[in-house]
């Protein structure tokens, strides 16, 4: 396994940053897993904060072929969680670089989902918005990490 960046030249990621990644990806994982279970069950979801969950989740945009979009969220957050644990375990730069990069990609995917809700569906789903928040926070961490690494290279 080769590292994207030579780990010897880079300082270890702080415990605070790692804890933040765990918390945000954990929340995102719970959120998208809940949506996935609801989507597969075909149940009507209860929106306690805003109306529109059912409109968003019943739309054809909520599925990519036979897979609910929320399932992709589960895989994304699970990947971030596992990679972060792998980094804590091995201290290999590759894992944390993958997390930082995936977080930025995830943010752009979230932007597209916000566009779908705001412009195409004109309905908002609170669970989807929660995922937008967690992926944005992860992306902020990702950008900060990359800036730090590029400065030190």
């Amino acid at each position: 396994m080769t590292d994207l960046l030579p780990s010897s030249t880079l300082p270890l990621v702080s415990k605070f940053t790692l804890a933040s990644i765990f918390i945000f990806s954990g929340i995102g994982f719970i959120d998208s897993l809940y949506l996935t279970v609801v989507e597969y069950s075909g149940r009507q979801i209860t929106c306690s904060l805003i109306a529109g969950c059912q409109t968003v989740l019943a739309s054809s945009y909520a599925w990519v072929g036979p897979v609910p979009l929320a399932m992709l969220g589960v895989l994304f957050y699970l990947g971030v969680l596992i990679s972060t644990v792998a980094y804590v375990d091995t201290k290999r730069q590759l894992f944390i670089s993958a997390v930082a990069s995936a977080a930025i990609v995830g943010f752009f995917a979230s932007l597209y989902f916000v566009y779908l809700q705001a412009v195409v569906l004109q309905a908002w789903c609170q669970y989807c918005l929660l995922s937008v928040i967690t992926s944005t926070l992860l992306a902020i961490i990702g950008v900060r990490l990359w800036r730090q690494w590029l400065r030190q290279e």
Partner: protein
Amino acid sequence: MTDLLPNDSPVLTKKQRQMLRRAEKLSARTAVAQRTTRQRWLLWSGVVIGLGLLTWLVIWVANSPTPAAVVTLPQVTANDWIDGNQDAPLMLIEYSDFQCPACARFQSTLKQLKATFGEQLAIVYRHFPLVEIHHNARLSAQAAEAAGVQGKFWAMHDLLFERQSDWSALPNPTDTFVKYAQELGLDQTSFTADLNSTVVKEKINQHLANALTAGLPGTPAFFLNGQAIQPPATYDGFAAILNTAAGK
């Protein structure tokens, strides 16, 4: 460690000192390696157990029943599309949208239920086209109604759900629906006329208005003997609800 050295020797030879150092290093390395392996095991088993528990909890919460909403629906009449006997002890009303993917996924469960419960179960189809998000929902409902004029509502209903992905994204699926009508052996001219007839459109509007008045949150919405039910994910779950209602 001490047994490596002779107890009665007050001064160690150079060779003995080297051996002692080597043994100490080896022992320290082994201890560190053991500790690291234990820590790694703890870390990864903690992660696996934690994620497993979290997943179980979320699935349990997502599947726990929510109180049924109290809604008032129009009575089932001969004007409704009923698959089964109007006097069947189990009357399942479905508010649905032909362009809704979740509704399409429920069709195989409903077919299985009908096959199992036979004459005991009647399934009523009512339109709830989510026109704001499904631009072909209304026209597909009209196509089913137009086929219904010629006695083929359920055949068109099945075809529309089966081929949902073929027509959902079309800007105007009229030609596709006419082809389906041909396939079902319907009179094309009558079908095309009925597709846009005021009677057909009015019927769908009436269903839509009833669904909105009842405050249905989306599709599919199911009512068993007048009570709103949360449709279970599996056939077995659905069958269990019907069995309970039938007093079995």
